[in-house]
């Protein structure tokens, strides 16, 4: 037992590190989900329901946002999926710097431990995941805990970025050119470029609030010549690209799932990669002002970034056309991973299109900071991202366990979750634009019309919770009762399915895989297997 534990803690194998990321991030998801349940129960009726202290609610909300983004989505996508898949997809024996990789996952777990201290320290942080000053400086809450959680997870991301950019650039098996990479690999490449450029800015911003709060500097104190808006600019200069750090890998895994289960080539691959992924990487850093539309930024920059923000629809549109086109003349099998993949397209459609009114500065003056925004970003990022992670887990499940999950249990889990999320997040958008109820409210007695919507959303939260339990059961059930899956249960042409299931502990293949002339991960309907 001790040996097994030692083996996992000190491992430098990218597959084990990936699974460590998966376990940690799913735990973060479960806990952050419990916070959501507490909040939804509190809001299910007007007036205090389970706590009469708004401070409790603020801590739940802080933990929900920070843990879901920094502890679940980013690590699950750029930690678990990237670690597990990328060396396998490019025919590498491991990542470029396996020990740095191990350090990243340690830092990630330390970040999680620090985040969990929220529930132990006397004055837990209550600064929301955004940590805006002056409140984060004025609050009696422990802002340092927030800062150091962000810094640890940020370091893990930077190390991961260096590692994977090097791996993808230099360690592809001989014969795999840039135009033969999986879309997931390309998307992760884009995501890590963004992480490397922008994470240091976030690190700087959160360090500055801690210096202001504990060391007596005045970066954000106007009375001493500081400015409160500097922080929001720095924060969103990172955090809008962070949305694409989540979006790119999740749309990438959806591409791989859709191509595999439609057994079809990617429609207009080059437009998706160079136009879609490339366009997003280029535009990511020029749109952050849309988070500051109502903060009194100068008019010229609000209008200027309204145009750049709307233009994000161009690369996203190219990715969409490519994704939908991949179904054309396909051979679609509706297994659980595919249900998740297809549902992400629908969720993205709702979430992406509701981003358009939010991009328009004059419409944002009303709906900014209301429930409309919460509904929008849960559709486009939170739910679509989570569904693609779950889809990715089911997709890779036979690879990393060597066993097949139970299809019926998995599908029940999917449908419960799908119904649950729509029961919460669609009413959320309606209540936002019709009543104008703002976000981050512990109570809403000034918006009596919102009450029935909140009751419905509470029911939706319960359905998701049951759905997630069913999903967990299907994963654990498969470990014990699953039938042997075989090396390539989905009939995929992609390289990761040429290994044994599970792949060899060291080196993945017996020898470096040989790549046939004209090979591609999506060359279906031809003899070039």
């Amino acid at each position, binding site marked *: 037992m001790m040996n097994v534990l030692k083996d996992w803690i000190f491992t430098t194998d990218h597959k084990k590190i990936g699974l460590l990321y998966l376990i940690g991030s799913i735990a973060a998801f479960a806990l952050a989900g419990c916070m959501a349940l507490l909040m939804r129960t509190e809001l299910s009726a007007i007036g205090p329901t389970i706590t009469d202290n708004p401070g409790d609610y603020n801590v739940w909300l802080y933990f929900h946002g920070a843990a879901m983004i920094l502890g679940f989505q980013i690590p699950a996508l750029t930690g678990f999926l990237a670690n597990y898949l990328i060396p396998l997809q490019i025919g590498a024996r491991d990542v470029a710097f396996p020990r740095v990789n191990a350090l990243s996952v340690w830092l990630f777990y330390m970040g999680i431990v620090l985040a969990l201290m929220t529930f132990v320290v006397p004055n837990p942080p209550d600064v929301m995941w955004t940590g805006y000053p002056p409140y984060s400086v004025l609050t009696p809450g422990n802002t340092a805990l927030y800062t150091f959680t962000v810094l640890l997870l940020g370091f893990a991301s930077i190390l991961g970025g260096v590692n994977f950019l090097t791996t993808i650039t230099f360690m592809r098996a001989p014969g795999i050119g840039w135009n033969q990479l999986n879309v997931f690999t390309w998307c992760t490449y884009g995501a890590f470029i963004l992480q490397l450029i922008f994470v240091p800015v976030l690190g700087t911003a959160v360090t500055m609030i801690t210096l202001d709060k504990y060391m007596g500097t005045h970066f954000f104190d106007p009375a001493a010549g500081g400015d409160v808006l500097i922080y929001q600019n720095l924060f969103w200069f990172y955090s809008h690209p962070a949305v694409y750090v989540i979006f790119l890998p999740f749309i990438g895994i959806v591409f791989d799932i859709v191509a595999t289960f439609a057994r079809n080539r990617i429609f207009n691959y080059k437009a998706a990669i160079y136009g879609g992924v490339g366009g997003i990487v280029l535009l990511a850093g020029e749109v952050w002002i849309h988070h500051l539309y109502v903060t009194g930024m100068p008019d010229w920059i609000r209008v200027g970034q*309204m145009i750049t923000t709307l233009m994000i629809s161009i690369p996203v549109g190219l990715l969409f056309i490519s994704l939908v086109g991949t179904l054309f003349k396909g051979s679609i099998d509706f297994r659980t991973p595919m249900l998740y993949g297809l549902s992400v397209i629908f969720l993205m459609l709702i979430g992406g299109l509701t981003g*358009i*009114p939010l991009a328009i500065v*004059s419409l944002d003056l009303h709906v*900014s900071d209301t429930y409309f925004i919460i509904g929008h970003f849960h559709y486009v990022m939170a739910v679509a991202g989570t569904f693609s992670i779950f889809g990715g887990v089911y997709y890779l499940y036979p690879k990393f366990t060597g066993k097949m999950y139970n299809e019926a249990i998995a599908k029940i889990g999917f449908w419960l979750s799908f119904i649950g999320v729509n029961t919460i997040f669609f009413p959320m958008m309606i209540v936002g634009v019709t009543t104008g109820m703002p976000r981050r409210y512990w109570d809403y007695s000034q918006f009596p019309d919102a009450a029935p919507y909140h009751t419905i959303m509470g029911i939706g939260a319960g359905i998701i919770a049951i759905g997630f339990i069913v999903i967990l059961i299907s994963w654990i059930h498969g470990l014990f009762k699953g039938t042997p899956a075989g090396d390539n249960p989905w009939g995929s042409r992609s390289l990761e399915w040429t290994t044994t299931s599970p792949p060899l502990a060291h080196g993945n293949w017996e020898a470096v895989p040989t790549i046939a002339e004209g090979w591609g991960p999506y060359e279906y*309907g031809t003899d070039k297997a």
Partner: protein
Amino acid sequence: MHKLGMTGLSLTSSLFGFIASLLPTSGFAKDIPDNAQGFDHLWYEVMVDITIIGVIFAVILVYFMIKYRRRSPDQEGSQKPMSAVSAVGWSVIPVFMFLADDLYLAASGWELYNDYRNVPENAFEVQMEAAMWTWDYTYPNGAKTYNELRVPAGTPVVIRMTSRDTLHSHYIPDFRIKEDSMPGRVTYIWFYPQEPGEHVVTCAEYCGLLHSKMYGKITVMPEDEFTAWYKNEGENLEQAVALN
């Protein structure tokens, strides 16, 4: 070719709209715009726009899902590699269609934004200082109210805002307008109350413990009632100053 021509046409027309919105609009005797109405109009237009796009995508998606479902276990997809010409076509045409729609929406959004930002000349000006967790209003004659702003119907109102402590956001859902108030900076919003009545004003930027309880009301009074109240407040203030 025909498709390309149409795209070019819509692109050109949206560019004209775009440029037209740059031209100065002041200098004409113009009615005071009702931004809440302007918002509702543009919102509706955008909803129609995104619903059409969404339905087109969804219909194609569902059609493909039904038509191309797998019929035998070994069946593979039969999509052919794309020729260079169609790859460029499938990239350039959508890019210009999206761009045309983006620029059209940006132009309409900008036009309404100008109305939101250009304060009418005869606007009644009130100072507001926010604090955890109260809205403090000061009127031109020195009168003060807390968590209730009284304004006359039929006159546009501009609020110049700042904050004593942290960020707040002065949000009046009925008038479709909000803007943050913060220490060290002055921001403004204006709105045009036309009928007497009461409207909720509530905080939309997280400000700690009682954020959700930071609300008050905008009371729009008939003009003569307001004038009487306002005069009375002013006189009371003068007496108080005289007594001191």
